[in-house]
């Protein structure tokens, strides 16, 4: 018998696909959001900041429950997707993707926001005195200087998505090839008393998580400096 059966491999690929897509989309969404949070003096800053952080403290079941309601046939998002002829998103890969993005949002926004804040106003003012428009300065000064924060955000988002379970179960269920990821696969194996299979996958997750954390700490050590 192979160490990992086809179902396990399917779950692994699905997990990597979900985590990769989530990471890419999160970077696109979180970067402008983090920039706004780091620059604004608006009174909306605090409430928006708290809202973004909410998934960090909420139980995944609560988050999953509301997403399920939102995406269901009676929810506003569900009605929209139904009207567009896409059907409902719950128990689909797309629904899982949306859930993962919401769930990992703080893990992407916070490192990027901190990186932007650490830059301070000076480099951007210097760029303005060198004829760079605000958008130009954002892309040529702020983003490159925030690179360590962006990298941290990407790694955390990826790892956090790989490790999610509650939200997946709530809105994705456990459909092989569609929404069955490694964490739910392990759960299934344990339910079925297939401890050997569970061991391989669980051990893999431990090794993966360890490597991620190791990368992060190495990154932190070298991240502040641009000297090569």
């Amino acid at each position, binding site marked *: 018998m192979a160490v990992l059966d086809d179902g396990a491999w399917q779950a692994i690929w699905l997990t990597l696909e979900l985590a990769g897509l989530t990471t890419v989309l999160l970077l696109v969404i979180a970067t402008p959001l983090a920039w706004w949070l780091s620059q604004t003096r608006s009174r909306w800053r605090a409430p928006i900041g708290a809202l973004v952080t909410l998934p960090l403290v909420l139980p995944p079941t609560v988050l999953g429950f509301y997403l399920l309601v939102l995406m269901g046939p009676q929810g506003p998002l569900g009605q929209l997707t139904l009207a567009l002829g896409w059907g409902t998103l719950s128990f689909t890969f797309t629904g899982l993707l949306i859930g993962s993005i919401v769930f990992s949002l703080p893990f992407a926004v916070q490192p990027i926001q901190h990186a932007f804040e650490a830059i301070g106003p*000076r480099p951007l003012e210097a*760029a303005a*005195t060198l004829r*760079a428009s605000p958008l*130009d*300065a954002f892309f040529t000064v702020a983003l490159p*200087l925030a690179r360590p924060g962006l990298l941290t955000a990407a790694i955390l988002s990826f790892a956090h998505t790989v490790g999610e379970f509650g939200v997946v179960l709530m809105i994705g269920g456990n459909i092989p090839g569609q929404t069955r990821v490694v964490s739910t696969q392990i759960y299934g194996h344990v339910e079925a008393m297939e401890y050997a299979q569970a061991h391989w996958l669980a051990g893999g997750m431990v090794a993966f998580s360890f490597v991620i954390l190791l990368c992060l700490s190495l990154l932190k050590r070298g991240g502040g400096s641009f*000297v090569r």
Partner: protein
Amino acid sequence: MNRVRLGLPRAEYDLDVDLALPARGITVLFGASGSGKTSVLRCVAGLERAREGFVRIGGAVWQDDAGGVFLPTWRRSLGYVFQESSLFEHLDVRRNLEYGLRRAKVEGGRAALDEAIELLGIRALLARRPAQLSGGERQRVAIARALATRPQLLLLDEPLASLDLPRRREIMPWLERLRDQLAVPMLYVTHSIDELSRLADEVVVLDKGRALAAGPVGAVLVQGDLPVLAGEEAAVVEGVIVERDARWHLASVRFDGGSLFVRDGGLETGCRVRLRVLAQDVSLVLDAPQRSSIQNHLPGIVDAVLADSHPSQALVRVRCGAQVLVSRVTRKSVDELGIRPALPVWVQVKSVAVVA
């Protein structure tokens, strides 16, 4: 003539200045910390917005609140050198220098950058990262970067303040070269009397957001009623080394109004130098001094007797040719010698500092 008029309400005091800036040379904004110097600079650059302002530089209006004009910083033809290093850490020196050059798209930018690289002696640093530069080198690169956009105005906000004394001494001659060789006017913020007397052509003395005095440095420093100078009243004398005395290690500096012996610092004859003569190093006598240990005597005419910070003292302004010197004496001496305007006197100068 460039014009800067700014009004900005602030917590401690309101900023309210109206300055006419010469089209070249260094205008120093001088004042204690918190006097509003940096705010003036930031408002001129548009980094902060004056509530009511009119800024016209080199024929372009940057801000005119009466006419509803406010150009953002990046549309103003200026260079800005910040107090601490503002180099982009993610770019090497060459790409830092080219950052503004590429965006300004001015004719002759490349030549201006080349000239600045030469003037500031940074050609050997081009491949380095900012983190590999000393504080003095960073500021020189920052100045060159600002000059590459061929600005109409160069703003310098205490560019030497973050440097220790040796670094400051190292960078000062570069600034003098810029002043003497470039046509771009500079607005230079400092609270250092050394930098002021060494670099300034014009000076604006700021206190609590207002300009107390403005004019050529030689005139303002001997004005006599500026507490911010804190006993550092001094005449700034510009002259030429005409003779070097090898035996006594002295150099003779001729200026419009006489000549002074200074310590021979190794400068060749014919060099232009700037001297600072502190009021406390100048005494007055009525008769031509004979058999005095003081080598420097100049005949002059009393111009004015001014109040000093302490009632026991007075500042006496004396005109020697075109040059004005200032002497700190006691009130008692003024009375006993009958010192009054138009009185011919002899000025004895005990010590002269060559500042540049």
